[in-house]
């Protein structure tokens, strides 16, 4: 168990972070090459102003028509993404490990609050899964990979929640927690979770085309 813990907490964590960052860079470079080879005219109307204008509107809760027509989905989407990012970064147990490894510390969430935020992230994943399987228009564009990436995202939170509440004995749930987080990071660039980076570019492109070519709003 000790050897496995040390492997998952050490080399595997490094590998996951390297694949995560390297993979995102690879996706970005590949996308830029693809644009240059296939549709170089895009660069003639890519615009910081229209791109950022679109991003700001879509980043604002209820700031677009689409966000306003589906208020429940809007709230769940915003809460999910915010908590998904904030909870692991400001979790005391994670900061303790960073502090002990590299001497890095920053402000931490109280454990009770982080626990609630973690439960909300899991509940949001359940919401997305139920929505995918029950709403006909979503089911039509859903395949098994959509459920798989939902599971991939929920797994670190689920295992972290169980480890924190000590529903299991020993270190294996913590090891599983670390492993699931590393798996999510490493696969992120190569699945549709890559929207973490590429979503911004898609939005900027849409904003530029709507703003500079069609002279219309895209929100």
């Amino acid at each position, binding site marked *: *168990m*000790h*050897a496995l*813990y*040390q492997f998952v907490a050490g080399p595997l964590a490094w590998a996951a972070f390297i694949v995560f960052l390297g993979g995102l860079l690879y996706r970005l470079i590949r996308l830029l090459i693809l644009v240059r080879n296939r549709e170089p005219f895009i660069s003639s109307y890519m615009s910081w102003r229209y791109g950022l204008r679109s991003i700001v509107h879509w980043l604002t809760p209820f700031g677009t028509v689409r966000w306003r027509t589906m208020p429940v989905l809007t709230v769940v989407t915003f809460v999910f993404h915010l908590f998904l990012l904030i909870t692991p970064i400001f979790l*005391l*147990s994670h900061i*303790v490990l960073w*502090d*002990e490894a590299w*001497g890095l510390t920053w402000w*931490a969430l*109280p*454990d009770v609050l982080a626990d609630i935020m973690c439960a909300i992230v899991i509940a949001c994943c359940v919401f997305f899964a139920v929505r995918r399987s029950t709403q006909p228009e979503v089911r039509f564009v859903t395949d098994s990979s959509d459920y798989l990436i939902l599971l991939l995202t929920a797994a670190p939170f689920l295992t972290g929640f169980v*480890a*924190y*509440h*000590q529903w299991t004995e*020993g*270190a294996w*749930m*913590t*090891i599983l927690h670390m492993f699931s987080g590393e798996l999510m990071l490493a696969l992120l660039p190569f699945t549709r979770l890559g929207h973490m980076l590429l979503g911004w570019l898609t939005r900027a492109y849409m904003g530029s085309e709507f703003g500079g070519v069609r002279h219309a709003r895209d929100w």
Partner: protein
Amino acid sequence: MNRMLFWGMTILSIAVAVCTAFGQEDMELVDNGAFDRPQRPPAIFEHDAHNEMAGLDDCAECHHLYDESGQKLEGESSEDQMCADCHELKDVGSKPGLRKAFHNNCKGCHVAQEKGPIACAQCHVR
């Protein structure tokens, strides 16, 4: 003479009882009183049972002592002091803060020896 013996024995018995009650023989939890608002329960630690199982005879293995320049003083130990007497809540230079000192001392050794608890919940049991 008998009276002196009686009082002597009584005082000795009380002293032994007090030492046993407040000594580390019965210690089951690490004292976390120095922390402001501890987020986790204090770590479970049965001093004597632990040392017997770990085959630890040298007190200074855990109760270490460092001089002002950060050099470990070999052959000296600090079991007459609280960890918090030296370790502040935050790191001071190369001297780790109290939480890190506890974790380094316990988990650090467990990792190195490949024995004992390593995950959060194994020590901070609810």
